[in-house]
């Protein structure tokens, strides 16, 4: 199955994908040059820092050590060797001989050996529950744990497929990690995988969050808690401000185009600060403006050559 010519990716490419680090996630010939309308290979787009998505998304912070650890995969684990030695439980190697290669190209899983497997579903649920309950602080720590379990430990998807789903998830509305869980779940086990992955990650974490809120509520009126809140308010405000700066850093273009980007940010800031205009109106207007004026300033291939 892995040698399926329709798919075009060989077994050894799965075992040793052309992914060495976050700097070079796919081979140079895979670069997709959308601005020039050329697609070198649509089946294997370049997705490091969102290049194949028209540059809409860059890595949150490619230089951030935690994110680099999360996204960089040294190598795929030698699952097949481990399975052959009997060192890995069959549940942990559901796809090795069939599914993910095709899934990687179609965006959906056709893992016949995986669908309906109670053993596999249980393992999938267990992994996502672990992600939901063990990653503290969200963001990169959750991403790191997802990668460790889904790619490295269980090898349900390849590094390349994980990176593609991560880049696509950055285009989603709302919580990007939910989109990532849904895309990975779909790739692994279809719609049931989506439900299990998202519910497994979100429900236990939501219970923990609500329980913490309830616990805090019992002491919220105490003078000590109020004093703590007086310090937490500017801390969360500062973190929100930093997040805004990080979003700008990720999204901004280069050269003269950065002035246009800065003007959009400044306008949104001023509108919310000094007027009573709707935030939704601001976002929708900027999105419409963006489709016309905020595209890439130059082809991705030239950027890549820098």
């Amino acid at each position, binding site marked *: 199955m892995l040698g399926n010519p329709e798919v075009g990716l060989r077994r050894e490419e799965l075992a040793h994908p052309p992914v060495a680090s976050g700097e070079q996630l796919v081979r140079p010939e895979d670069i997709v040059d*959308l601005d020039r309308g050329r697609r070198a290979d*649509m089946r294997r787009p370049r997705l490091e820092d969102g290049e194949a*998505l*028209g540059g*809409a998304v860059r890595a949150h912070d490619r230089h951030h*050590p935690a994110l680099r650890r999360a996204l960089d995969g040294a190598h795929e684990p030698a699952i097949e060797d481990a399975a052959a030695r009997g060192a890995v439980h069959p549940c942990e190697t559901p796809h090795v001989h069939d599914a993910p290669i095709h899934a990687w190209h179609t*965006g959906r899983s056709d893992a016949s050996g995986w669908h309906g497997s109670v053993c596999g579903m249980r393992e999938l649920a267990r992994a996502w529950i672990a992600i939901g309950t*063990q*990653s503290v*602080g*969200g*963001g990169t720590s959750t991403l790191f744990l997802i990668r460790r379990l889904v790619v490295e430990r269980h090898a349900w998807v390849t590094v390349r497929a994980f990176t593609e789903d991560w880049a*696509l998830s950055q285009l989603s*509305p*709302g*919580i990007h990690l*939910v989109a990532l869980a*849904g*895309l990975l779940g779909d790739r692994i086990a279809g719609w049931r995988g989506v439900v299990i992955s998202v519910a497994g990650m979100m429900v*236990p*974490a939501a219970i923990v*969050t*609500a329980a913490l809120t309830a616990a*805090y509520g019992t002491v919220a009126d105490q003078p*000590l808690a109020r*004093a703590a809140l007086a*310090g*937490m*308010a*500017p*801390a*969360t*405000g*500062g*973190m*929100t*401000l*930093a*997040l*805004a*700066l*990080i*979003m*700008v850093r990720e999204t*901004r273009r280069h050269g003269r185009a950065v002035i246009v980007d800065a003007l959009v*940010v400044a306008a*949104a*800031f*001023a509108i*919310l600060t000094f007027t009573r205009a*709707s935030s939704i109106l*601001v*976002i*929708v207007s900027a*999105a419409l*403006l963006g*489709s016309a004026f*905020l*595209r*890439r300033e130059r082809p991705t291939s030239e950027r890549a050559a820098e």
Partner: protein
Amino acid sequence: MTSDLALFLTLLKDSALALGGLGSLPLVRQDLVATGLVTDAQVVQALAIGRLSTGPNGLWIVSLGYQIDGWLGAAIALVACSLPPLVMVPATIVGRRFLMTPAFAGIVRGAALATAGLLASTGVSLIAPDIAATAWWQLGIGAAAAGLTYEGRLHPGLVVVGGALLGVGLAR
């Protein structure tokens, strides 16, 4: 029941129109704080708990939902914030090529830049809702938290705990 449905639709709309877990903060604040359903202090509490809890950052909405309507509110908030991102699953199947076009890239970039501006405004107003009534040490905490978060060298939970400890030491 009607208020629960209204809460669900509000949070669903705010999540659907935001990018990222905290991207909905300006929208939620405009919808819920401005209308008096929650206070800014409750929003801060939800943000702090969201940072200290497990799972994605966006679960701060669940904390806010709990404060509004207990476990039912938390469940409503959970569903409301979980549904919008899942649009990507069918979208990548039927519109994969469109997602890779420069036009869509521009839409996302425009929304992201606007969200950044809105978040910056929200962050400033959380640090100093009334500049005349804000203590110097609160401005210092805000600046330090912004710097530490931007650099990414300290766990966000520690930033929140640090702010709380400084508050206990300086606000009393």
